[in-house]
């Protein structure tokens, strides 16, 4: 048996799960898909004293549309990937999901687990930051909503308190005159990417760039937003040159990647620059496609 001993609870309601968290705090780890936690326990990198398995809590699995799309934390990545509401209303998420690992892992891995894990190489935190999603956190004393910008607080760390569980993620619906794109480069499809980004590009009535958001994976200690590159696009006419410049600024000024086993910092910068240009062009094409084929 690989993992160190622990006590296991599988509450059927959120109230019971929150009571366990209130009682045991950090000692009690939530078990969602287990696709990151159990490998870590098999290596004994993680040795939680108590596991609170959330898989029996049906209320954490729903997907609701109500001015935004609210996805329950325990929704599996493959359920979200196949959900028509996600495809229609949060196309960036729909595009990013198949990049997470392999289908066998997405069948167990959850939306909430990936977000709460806050791996700098993961796709979902990047998407959440680019879309300015909000996270619903609950504890015995009530619920609060945390903006993505505050939620991700560094390497594998989030703003969740010891007695809180992440219960849902709220994604804003597609906006008008806005295009989205998710691109990454991995050595093999399903592996963690060497670099990648989520791009959101909005135009104003005159076709000028109203706003851009560029958020990168695996080049910092969390989802990394390139604010200078985004600012360089503001008010500009979208063009290949403007996109190329944005890629240069993002890769040279907004990030100082550490590199990893498969990519040097210079190579990550190169990939980021090229992918930025492509993602912005793709986002732009998608806005114009929508305009001609409503």
């Amino acid at each position, binding site marked *: 048996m690989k993992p*160190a001993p622990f006590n296991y609870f599988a509450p059927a309601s959120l109230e019971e799960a929150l009571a366990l968290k209130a009682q045991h705090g950090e000692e009690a780890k939530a078990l969602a898909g287990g696709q990151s936690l159990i490998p870590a326990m098999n290596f004994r990198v993680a040795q939680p004293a108590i596991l609170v398995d959330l898989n029996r809590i049906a209320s954490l699995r729903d997907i609701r549309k109500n001015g935004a799309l609210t996805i329950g934390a325990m929704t599996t990545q493959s359920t979200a990937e196949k959900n028509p509401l996600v495809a229609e209303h949060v196309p960036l998420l729909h595009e990013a999901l198949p990049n997470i690992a392999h289908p066998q892992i997405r069948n167990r891995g959850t939306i909430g687990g990936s977000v709460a894990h806050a791996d700098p190489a993961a796709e979902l935190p990047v998407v959440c930051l680019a879309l300015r999603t909000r996270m619903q956190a609950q504890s015995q004393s009530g619920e609060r909503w945390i903006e993505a910008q505050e939620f991700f607080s560094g390497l594998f760390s989030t703003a969740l308190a010891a007695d809180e569980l992440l219960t849902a993620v709220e994604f804003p619906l597609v906006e008008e005159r806005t295009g989205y794109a998710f691109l990454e480069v991995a050595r093999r499809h399903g592996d963690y990417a060497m670099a990648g980004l989520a791009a959101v590009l909005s135009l104003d009535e005159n076709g000028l760039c109203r706003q851009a958001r560029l958020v990168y994976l695996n080049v910092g200690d969390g989802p990394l937003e390139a604010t200078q590159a985004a600012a360089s696009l503001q008010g500009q006419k979208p063009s290949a040159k403007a996109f190329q410049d944005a890629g240069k600024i993002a890769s040279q000024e907004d990030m100082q990647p550490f590199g990893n086993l498969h990519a040097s910092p210079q190579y990550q910068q190169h990939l980021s620059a090229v992918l930025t240009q492509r993602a912005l062009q793709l986002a732009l094409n998608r806005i114009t496609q929508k305009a001609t084929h409503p």
Partner: protein
Amino acid sequence: MSQTHSIQVRINGTPYAHEVEPRLLLADYIRQVVGLSGTHIGCEHGVCGACTILLDGQAVRSCIMLAVQADGHELTTVEGLAQDEKSLHPIQEAFWEAHGLQCGFCTPGILMTLVPYLEENPNPTETEVRDAISGNLCRCTGYQHIVDAALLAAEKLQSKP
């Protein structure tokens, strides 16, 4: 010490009930407690795919799931594919005919990946098959024969009444 939990599962249609420690991995439960050793263990951290089984019809890694979590669920392992002792499942037949295995260590995981995949995508292209098995590592075959076998399996399944 952690307490044990009683679990009830159905594996390949047969019901089982056991007392298990929570830290028992599902793969070890299937192999050591139930005694079905067709499910293989390579890496024990979700990467190689050798331990892939079906949980309520969906392919999952049994090395990164706890046996307690399978309580009340329906599992299918490679032993559950053939209808009886004398026959093979069409996907197994295809692996036999197209030489889809050498040592056979990765084979159960690949079969269990392909069963639900070919149900959803009965007519895949070669590229799609390569993508579908990208979460299963084989150290022997160079994949070419596995891909051939998967395409042959798709044909066999389609021509079945």
